[in-house]
């Protein structure tokens, strides 16, 4: 009965050993690949947050400004039309005076001229003052406390972006001014704190990076997303339902199917130039308008929505359709009463992911002029939200990254953080929807 080939189960034979080794190796590759991916992600996040968080903090200067009657309203009539004649230029003396008085109050010595002293303030300070006076003419003659933005260089000094070495060739700030900043910091006249207007405000000109914010371009993005949602969702869902449930399977539908998949792979800039040619040059819709941006992004998002909607319709088991038809439901009843509700979570997930893609899209906006436009005001009505020139979040970020002043560079990173927060929120909603309404049968 002795079998020469008989082996024990307690010792591994050569083949098994080799197989196990191969499996162990493969697992190691997998873990290494995931590890590399995670490391990249962490590096990315650390960089983005490291460079961008600064944008959410801003340096402010608190001053008591005497609203001198002789400068603002010589006749003392409080006539708004007369007061309006005083331009921001006319408010500069008030700022200089306020700065001088503050320095005396805290006993800070400096041999800077008052113009240089006031240069620590943002160029937006005079406008801020003027707006206040125009809205509160009764305060003329009083002394009012204001919180002004500090100049971007001062802000950079507090954030270590500007140092005493780096300003050697800088015409806009000098060492004596930095001494003054140090003294004002000690006196708590200057302080750095959270800056809401970076999130809510409008973009600002090249000279005032400290005043620039994302808010208006966020609105631009919001109106574009409304257009995309209102067009891409119904069109995409209707097309998918027709293709998946009603259309006969023949070569025509095959061609349509292939082309939808191809459309999903078309570079977005192609949609941009299409939008330029069709919506702006032929239909004469306004340039730089969120409506046009939304239309272009709709074209881009449609294939994504159609593909994901068809996939979720396909995943509804055919037995449900049979059940509905079996009790005498029409095709349409079976689709709308049973199939669509079951596919809805998948459809919404796909839509949200398509919207998130559209939200981050930059290239097509370049071609329809939504980049490079500075929207200095929030749209004042829903119609103007769609039709007035605006920017969009990624376009705004691109615009800032292009500008020379490093203060804008920081804001570009800050903008990316805001954009990422939106994208992560949308994706989280998509995941929750999918989890929550996932059905098992």
């Amino acid at each position, binding site marked *: 009965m002795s079998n020469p080939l008989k082996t024990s189960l307690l010792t591994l034979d050569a083949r098994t050993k080799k197989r196990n080794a191969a499996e162990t190796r493969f697992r190691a590759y997998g873990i290494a690949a995931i590890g590399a991916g995670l490391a990249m992600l962490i590096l990315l996040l650390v960089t983005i947050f490291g460079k961008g968080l600064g944008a959410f903090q801003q340096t402010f200067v608190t001053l008591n400004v005497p609203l001198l009657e002789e400068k603002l309203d010589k006749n003392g009539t409080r006539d708004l039309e007369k007061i309006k004649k005083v331009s921001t230029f006319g408010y500069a003396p008030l700022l200089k005076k306020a700065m001088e008085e503050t320095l005396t109050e805290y006993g800070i010595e400096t041999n800077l001229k008052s113009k240089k002293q006031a240069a620590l303030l943002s160029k937006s300070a005079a406008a801020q003052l003027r707006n206040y006076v125009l809205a509160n003419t009764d305060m003329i003659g009083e002394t009012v406390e204001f919180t002004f933005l500090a100049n971007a260089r001062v802000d950079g000094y507090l954030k270590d972006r500007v140092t005493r070495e780096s300003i050697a060739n800088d015409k806009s700030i000098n060492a004596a001014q930095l001494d003054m900043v140090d003294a004002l910091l000690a006196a708590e006249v200057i302080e750095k704190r959270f800056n809401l207007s970076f999130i809510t405000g409008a973009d600002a000109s090249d000279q005032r990076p400290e005043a620039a914010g994302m808010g208006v371009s966020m609105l631009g993005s919001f109106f574009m997303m409304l257009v995309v949602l209102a067009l891409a969702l119904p069109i995409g869902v209707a097309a998918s339902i027709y293709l998946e449930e009603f259309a*006969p*399977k023949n070569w025509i539908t095959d061609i349509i199917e292939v082309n939808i998949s191809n459309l999903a792979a078309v570079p977005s800039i192609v949609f941009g130039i299409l939008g330029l040619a069709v919506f702006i040059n032929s239909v004469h819709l306004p340039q730089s308008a969120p409506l046009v941006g939304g239309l272009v992004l709709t074209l881009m998002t449609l294939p994504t929505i159609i593909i994901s909607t068809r996939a979720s319709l396909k995943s509804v*088991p055919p*037995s*449900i*359709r*049979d*059940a*509905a*038809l*079996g*009790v*005498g*439901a*029409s095709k349409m*009843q079976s689709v709308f*009463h*049973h199939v669509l509700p*079951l596919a809805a979570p998948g459809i919404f997930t796909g839509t949200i992911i398509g919207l998130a893609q559209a939200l981050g899209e930059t290239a097509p906006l370049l071609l329809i002029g939504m980049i490079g436009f500075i929207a200095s005001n929030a749209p004042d009505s829903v119609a103007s939200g769609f039709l007035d020139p605006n920017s969009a979040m990624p376009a705004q970020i691109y615009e800032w990254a292009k500008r020379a002043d490093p203060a804008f560079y920081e804001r570009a990173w800050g903008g990316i953080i805001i954009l990422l927060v939106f994208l992560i929120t949308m994706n989280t909603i998509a995941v929750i929807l999918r989890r929550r309404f996932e*059905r098992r*049968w």
Partner: protein
Amino acid sequence: MKDTSMDTIKISAKDVQVYYADNHAIKDVNVDIADKTVTAFIGPSGCGKSTFLRCLNRMNDTIDICHVEGDILIDGEDIYDRRVDPVQLRAKVGMVFQKPNPFPKSIYDNVAYGPRIHGLARAKSDLDEIVEKSLRSAAIWDEVKDRLDAPGTGLSGGQQQRLCIARAVATAPEVLLMDEPCSALDPIATAQVEELIDELRQNFAVVIVTHSMQQAARVSQKTAFFHLGNLVEYGDTNQIFTKPSDPRTESYITGRIG
């Protein structure tokens, strides 16, 4: 079994041919199915039992490549006539499928769905009544009467299948088609469904496809034996199982074809 209505012909098929593209799946089938009777279709798998059953309520219309020829009359009316809307037909000819397929909705809504879309109930109380009656006739009322709001998909396999039967019964059909209704069920659930089928015969013509010859023998009065798309033999169940006239039927029943 001295019921006279048993002799009334409910469904009459003449020279029925079914093609799936080029595959000739049903060949020259002629059969008369009696009312208030359980008729069983037996035969080896792939012989076309399901295909023929699905002709009776035009479920084959949903398959693009499927093509039916010949006449199928229900109460003397050709269901393949151009004027017939299959949707209307299916309310009259209910169907129960192989795998229990309740809607992922409440037990109540599963049963109420058919009556709702066909406008069978005017008031909520009418609907409640239909639901209760249907669940009772599917012998599941006592098990679910306290949880009509619970999802139908949460029931056991046998309960789900009886729920599907209740759903089919709720539209007040005249014919009930069942395609291997017990093949996904355990023996106890199978026994319950079989008992139910016998009761359903009071009100409907029941046509059941089964791969189990014992089941055919237990529940049916008439049996049709299909082989390779042909209807080989059709007659009283007793006669088919005891004195088959065709050698192919005999080999199948004795287990030589399968």
